[in-house]
């Protein structure tokens, strides 16, 4: 495969590119989706192609093709150079890169049990079993269960000499029960919503989730929510489950810490960021308890890998340390703008997209409390679990989230279930109100498989680790 890569790189450098990289990617996937006792989707897939990125005359160009043949590599390489030259006609900054490291590596994400090797009958059987268990609960009207596995083999080479092969396997699974009346619809999911739990793992992830054990519980909760009281409106202390915190971290820390956003690359579409460079090392993002860091090296994370899509080794980067904003997710091009080292944050969605700065695994350091302790120390609050809706402004300041379920907390004790819970606020005020985080025993690493960014829209698979945490005086019931 490196022969084809070398051919492309020879072409682009021969045409005047000062830099070029090529990614040749082959992926394989399998999706099983069961709904209301039927195997609604039984699907396999493969994809194969390559993309070439170049710098010519101080500007970027990118071209890609699904035809992985020598002549096509030459044609696409020439096209990438032409595109870059066209870009150079309208630029106000000359793109340069810090020196590369000529990395050479072969890396596979750890997999204990190859999910493609597990028999189809076993996988379908598990999902149908869960579906049946949920459907048996009186009042449940819709049930579904889902399994998604994917392996991506990626060959990376650049004109500076890097030669890297990675094979990364992702597995995701989840179940969902919905109860509908004429005027209302309530849903509960397990392990979490929007597809369930995902990780860089094999079938061991599915076994660890023990889906059938939870199926009757969540079905019962969906039905019980219909009769629950609505979420009260007002200002309350809230405790967020770790899966809801994962999305809170994603939207209010992950995206605003992407330096390309900060520099305006998403102004017209996905938006900007309030974390502007003058705030670096001066801005109080959160309370002293809050340390948020990016780390693609963590085993099992959905944003885990050894090298990013410009050949930079993955590394830990603190974004917020003890409440102080202290770092960005950066690329090779943007790192010098904020005096950071490239931290392995550039990724593309497949072979036919240009890499962008993407969230990796961004995690909240655990504290030293426990969920029970946080509840017991809360006089009047809500414990809110599992995301249902999310919206945040283009600078990533004002947000509103909804969760599937919440429980009242009165006098330090968990009380009644409430339905349609929502909360909202402003990112720095919210994180500065954090006064308790549960410890490492309750810290979980969640996978978010549907992160979006860029034009054309690129998906990314990312991870967020968190333990339950408490936030004081938050506006709830905002609808």
């Amino acid at each position, binding site marked *: 495969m490196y022969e084809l890569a070398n051919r492309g790189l020879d072409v682009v450098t021969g045409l005047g590119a000062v830099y070029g990289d090529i990614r040749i990617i082959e992926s394989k996937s399998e999706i099983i989706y069961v709904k209301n006792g039927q195997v609604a989707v039984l699907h396999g897939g493969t994809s*194969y192609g390559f993309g070439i990125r170049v710098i010519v005359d101080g500007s970027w160009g*990118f071209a890609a093709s699904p035809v992985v043949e020598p002549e096509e590599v030459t044609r696409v390489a020439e096209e990438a150079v032409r595109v870059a030259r066209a870009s150079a006609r*309208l630029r*106000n900054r000359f793109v340069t890169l810090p020196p590369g490291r000529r990395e050479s590596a072969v890396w596979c994400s750890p997999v204990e049990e190859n999910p493609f090797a597990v028999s189809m009958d076993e996988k379908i059987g598990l999902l149908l079993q869960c579906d049946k268990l949920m459907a048996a609960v009186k009042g449940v009207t819709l049930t579904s269960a889902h399994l998604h596995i994917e392996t991506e083999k990626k060959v990376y080479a650049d004109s500076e000499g890097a030669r890297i092969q990675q094979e990364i396997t992702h597995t995701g699974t989840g179940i969902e029960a919905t109860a509908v009346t004429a005027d209302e619809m309530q849903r509960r999911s397990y392990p979490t919503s929007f597809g369930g739990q995902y990780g860089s793992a094999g079938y061991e992830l599915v076994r660890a989730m023990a889906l059938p054990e939870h199926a009757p519980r969540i079905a019962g909760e969906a039905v019980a929510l219909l009769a629950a009281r609505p979420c009260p409106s007002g200002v309350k202390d809230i405790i967020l489950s770790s899966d809801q915190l994962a999305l809170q971290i994603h939207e209010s820390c992950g995206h605003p810490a992407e330096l390309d956003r900060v520099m305006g690359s998403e102004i017209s*579409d996905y938006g900007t960021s309030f974390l502007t460079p003058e705030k670096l090392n001066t801005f109080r993002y959160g309370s002293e308890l809050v340390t948020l860091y990016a780390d693609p090296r963590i085993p099992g994370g959905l944003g885990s890998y050894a090298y990013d899509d410009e050949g930079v080794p993955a590394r830990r980067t603190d974004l917020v340390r003890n409440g102080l904003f202290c770092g960005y997710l950066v690329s090779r091009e943007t790192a010098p703008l904020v005096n950071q080292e490239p931290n392995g944050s550039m990724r593309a969605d497949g072979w036919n997209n240009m890499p962008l700065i993407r969230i990796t695994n961004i995690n909240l350091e655990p504290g030293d409390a426990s969920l029970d302790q946080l509840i017991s120390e809360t006089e009047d609050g809500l414990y809110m679990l599992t995301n249902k809706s999310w919206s945040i402004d283009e600078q990533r300041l*004002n947000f509103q989230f909804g969760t599937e379920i919440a429980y009242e907390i009165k006098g330090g004790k968990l009380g009644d279930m409430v339905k349609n819970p929502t909360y909202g606020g402003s990112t720095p005020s919210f994180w500065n109100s954090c006064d308790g985080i549960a410890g490492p025993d309750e810290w979980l690493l969640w996978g978010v498989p549907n992160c979006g960014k860029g034009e054309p829209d690129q998906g990314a698979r990312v991870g967020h680790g968190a333990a339950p945490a408490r936030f004081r005086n938050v506006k709830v019931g905002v609808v």
Partner: protein
Amino acid sequence: MMDKSLVERITTVVTGHAVADQTMLMITDEKQGLTRFTDNSIHQNVVTRSVEIMISVVRNNRIASVLTNRTEPEQLRRAVDDAVRMVAHQQTSFPELPPLGPQEYRRMAAVDPVIPAVTPEERGEMVQCLVAPAKAEGATAAGAVAHSSYSFAVTDSSGVMAFHEGSDFQVSVTYMKNGGSAWAQDKAWRAADLDIQAVSNRAMTKLRLPLLKDRLVPGRYRVILEPHAVANLMETTMWNAFGALQYEEGRSFLSGKLNTLVTGESVTIRDNAFFPRYPQIPFDLEGYPRQEVTLIERGRFINTLHDRLTAARHGTVSTGHSIGSRATLGQSASRLVLAPGDGDPMAVDRALLISRFHYNREVDPKHSRATGVTRNGIILVEDGKMKGVLHDLRYNESVMAAFQRIEAVGTETLPAGEYGLAAAPALRIADFTFTETL
């Protein structure tokens, strides 16, 4: 790009190899060019081509599918073998559907031969047209010029040969100066229909408005929604609302409301894949010809969208809105077109003009309730004139309820929205609910 003869050859290879009762193919070939710019400078410029072939096999009414992007006969046969292996494990037997056979599709103009030939240099010149006014104004410009051309086919072993070629051109720009910003966008299937200068002018006119220091408090306001903002609301709440299965399952806010008034009488919404300015593919994922369907007529909800299975259950015919999978997931709209009116939304003493909403999400799907934020500022309109720009707000609103409070419907329906699903005129709506000040 793939032409019809190549689609036919691929179909012959696949159907000839599959040992199945029925074999279906969905074939996409798309070439895209995109130039993005920020701070008056190009920062991303790409040319890509993607091919996808979805092969579904049916045996004893059991279905499995495999996706590949390889067109070589050997690779196609391998994908068929994979699908046949998978279907042996399928435990669900779906209701039997008779073979569809060859169909007639409505002809429509949807592909501009100019678009595949647009070069990166020409895109750069278009970007220059958007950047130059910003420089002249002492402002900065960001945005994108994007085009694609594609062929899409649905074929099967019963003789279905649905083939469509289309093109798409989109331009967007955000101008920024002194802490203010203004945005405009246009999209069309034909390059000549895009007026880049007009896009620039629309944004620049708003950028030149004074920034007002007044603070709006959360509450209910009379709003004028430009077509893009209307389309944002429609895409967020309605994309999945009109399907017959969603209706049956009670998931839709329209469930149980057929033949009742659900909006004000000024609202007529059709699903129209043949909307001339921005047409959709004229067949669905079963290869069934799409029909124009009036969904809401003068406020009354009168039709759902069907595929062949739900149509059979309801004793009617398919409307051509299958998304595959034999109706287990529901049916989806193709192009929701809100009919124009004869009003002038701007003819009002005082209102808040909104260009677009951002990060819109359904909060309560059973009541079409959504949240999101205004973007690039809210423009105060007094005596029918734009007076200045106010800060943004968060809304929480039931779209169906808001559509009961429409005071004026604009005279031109335009393609708009983030996902290409909707076309809408401008609307003036009373008492639109904002819950947060940004």
